[in-house]
């Protein structure tokens, strides 16, 4: 493990720092813009100067940079107060690599540069009510009609569908072959007639996801990526590009915030931080937090040597989410009766961090691969254990038991 930049990395970091120092948007610059406008403004500015989507080829707005350079750029950008650009992550992180791999040259030239600059926002229409962990069990169907395909069905958990211009979509074009073989991949204009978007209200009270209904939505065959029946293979390109969230700080409840709380509330007549049971719990969480931090350093060292991050990176979410949940729960306990108050103005210093985290983490433990799926990935792809036998293997999708 190496904690220092190489000479080239240090030079790149200095360049990035200098550019951010000179170009970080001022409050005046952003005056009057809403969050989306700020994101688009900042993204366009970065790309124009060669500091956005740096891993992409030059022709699409990038600079053919390495993975470690991307990490360094993320670290440096995190140090300034730039507008949040998370709205682009699905388009740039998943749609763009898929288009670059599977689209024809005209489509690449038409869409990829606009993805880089943030002019277009894309969403991902994969998950369905009956296809979550078992994504290939999706049922939304497409039927060929002349030069078009007619889509009927429902997608779910679609982040940002309501503000997206385009979506990447996997549908079933043949129910009479085994499930992976009957899928086809398209991209779709989100303003197409027949698309209806309904926000989902989460237990946290927020709405980050949507249900997307398709009723006789027509998609031209020219918007197909890959061959008919090749949708699973194309999907894998998308899924493999799901951003490894390395180098980022991450939110949620941290050791520091619970330790501070423990110094400010009492157990018996003493500060909780003096209680040995509290100290033991805090220590174990510190060990996990440090372990995650140094594991990400090891990944960075490997990236720096040119290695590709593997499935071992599933550890971060698997450990981090439940740790944050347990720490939030413990912090609420330390607060006794006051612990259930969820009001940002109640505590100036920390707001409602513990209560918000308590309500947010159940979703994080499910999104982007449940804890159980992550454990399967580690067991199968890292340790090499065999898959469970699958009851749907080799039989036509239409004959697979569904429980309904």
């Amino acid at each position, binding site marked *: 493990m190496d904690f220092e930049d190489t000479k080239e990395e240090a030079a790149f970091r200095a360049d990035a720092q200098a550019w951010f120092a000179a170009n970080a948007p001022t409050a005046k610059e952003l005056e009057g813009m809403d969050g989306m406008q700020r994101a688009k403004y900042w993204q366009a500015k970065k790309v124009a100067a060669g500091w956005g989507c740096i891993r992409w080829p030059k022709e699409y707005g990038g600079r053919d940079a390495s993975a470690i350079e991307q990490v360094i750029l993320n670290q440096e950008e995190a140090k300034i107060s730039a507008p949040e650009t998370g709205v682009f992550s699905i388009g740039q992180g998943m749609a763009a690599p898929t288009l670059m791999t599977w689209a024809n040259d005209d489509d690449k030239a038409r869409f990829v540069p606009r993805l880089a600059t943030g002019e277009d926002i894309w969403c991902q229409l994969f998950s369905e009510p009956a296809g979550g962990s078992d994504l290939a069990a999706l049922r939304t169907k497409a039927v060929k009609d002349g030069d078009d395909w007619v889509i009927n069905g429902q997608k779910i958990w679609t982040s940002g569908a309501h503000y997206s211009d385009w979506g990447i979509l996997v549908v079933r074009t043949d129910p009479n072959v085994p499930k992976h073989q009957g899928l086809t991949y398209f991209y779709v204009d989100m303003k197409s007639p027949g698309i209806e978007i309904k926000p989902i209200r989460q237990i946290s009270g927020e709405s980050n996801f949507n249900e997307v209904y398709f009723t006789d939505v027509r998609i031209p065959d020219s918007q197909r990526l890959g061959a008919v029946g090749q949708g699973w293979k194309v999907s894998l390109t998308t899924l493999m590009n799901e951003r490894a969230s390395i180098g980022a700080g991450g939110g949620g409840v941290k050791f520091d915030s619970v330790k501070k709380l423990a110094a400010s509330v009492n157990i018996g007549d003493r500060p909780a931080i003096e209680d040995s049971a509290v100290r033991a719990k805090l220590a174990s969480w*510190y*060990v996990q937090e440090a*372990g995650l*931090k*140094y594991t990400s350093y*090891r990944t960075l060292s490997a990236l720096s040597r040119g290695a590709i991050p593997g499935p071992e990176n599933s550890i971060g979410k698997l450990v981090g989410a439940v740790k944050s949940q347990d720490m939030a729960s413990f912090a609420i306990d330390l607060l006794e009766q006051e612990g259930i108050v969820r009001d940002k103005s109640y505590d100036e210093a920390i707001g409602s961090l513990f209560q918000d985290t308590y309500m947010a983490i159940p979703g994080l433990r499910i999104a982007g691969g449940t804890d159980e799926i992550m454990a399967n990935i580690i067991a199968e792809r890292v340790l090499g254990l065999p898959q469970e036998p699958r009851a749907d293997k080799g039989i036509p999708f239409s004959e697979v038991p569904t429980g309904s």
Partner: protein
Amino acid sequence: MGWTATVIPEEFGGLGLSYLELAVIAEELGRCAAPVPFGSSVYLATEALLLGGNQEQKEAWLPTLATGEAIGTFAYAEGGGQSSPKSLATKASGGKLSGRKVVVPDAEIAQFVIVAAASDSGDGASLYLVDMSDAGVSTESVQTLDPSRSHAHIDFSSASAQLLGGEGQGWGLLQRVLDRAAVLTAWEQLGGSEACLEMAKNYAMGRYAFGRAIASYQAIKHKLADMYVKNTLARSNAYYGAWALNTDAAELPLAAATARVGSTQAYYFSSKENIQTHGGMGYTWEFDCQFYYRRSKLLAVNIGSEGLWQERLIAATEQSNVA
């Protein structure tokens, strides 16, 4: 192989290598649950001499420690739970040491022992170096959870003792020795924990139940994935500990406690779940699972329990405000 000589400077007949090399050796000793007097002599006695010994003491012992001809050990526990300067009944005066130390590793094969005794000055304790062949030293062997390693109580009755380090500076010196031993022990624990995962994996791949390898059942898969996760995090913390030890970084106390707690938790988990994965066979004397289950507990308490190191960790964050 020169392993005992790894970090001993060349002027004392050692190899003068770094703690990173020693960490690799520790990991491999742990992986095979080696029944050797290594931790006692290398992580504790050698480190204490390197940190606190004067030139004469170093010349007397380091060259033979390097060749492996001499074995040293370290004795501070007196029973009744955690030790503190106030609890020490062992005392020295006029170069003579008396008292009783319990469950000292390799006491019966060591040539010398470094002993913590009460002091009226400084931090309340001083360290002494005692030759095990002294007429005032006697041992009483003791059965432990891990019979592959030897332990004994030591009685000192006016045994000749040389002060190691300053009078009244023993407790501080002991803590520094423990921090260093904690990093190296963490690597040994990690090696053992990795061995447990490997054993459990191999067994689960070959053992069939209900017509398929038990490794294909999620109940087993998730257990092994848990082991992998704990080992990976423990390894990352152990790397950081090795770095801190090797560079004598100011955050060594925090890094050492972090590595120690992580490895202790990982090894306990892997060693018990390895038996579980093996089913009934894992509980038999014939299988090796027991070696690791026994060793995990020996290494979990030999330089202080998980609880003690959790306390040291939090105390270190309070001291340095690094967290």
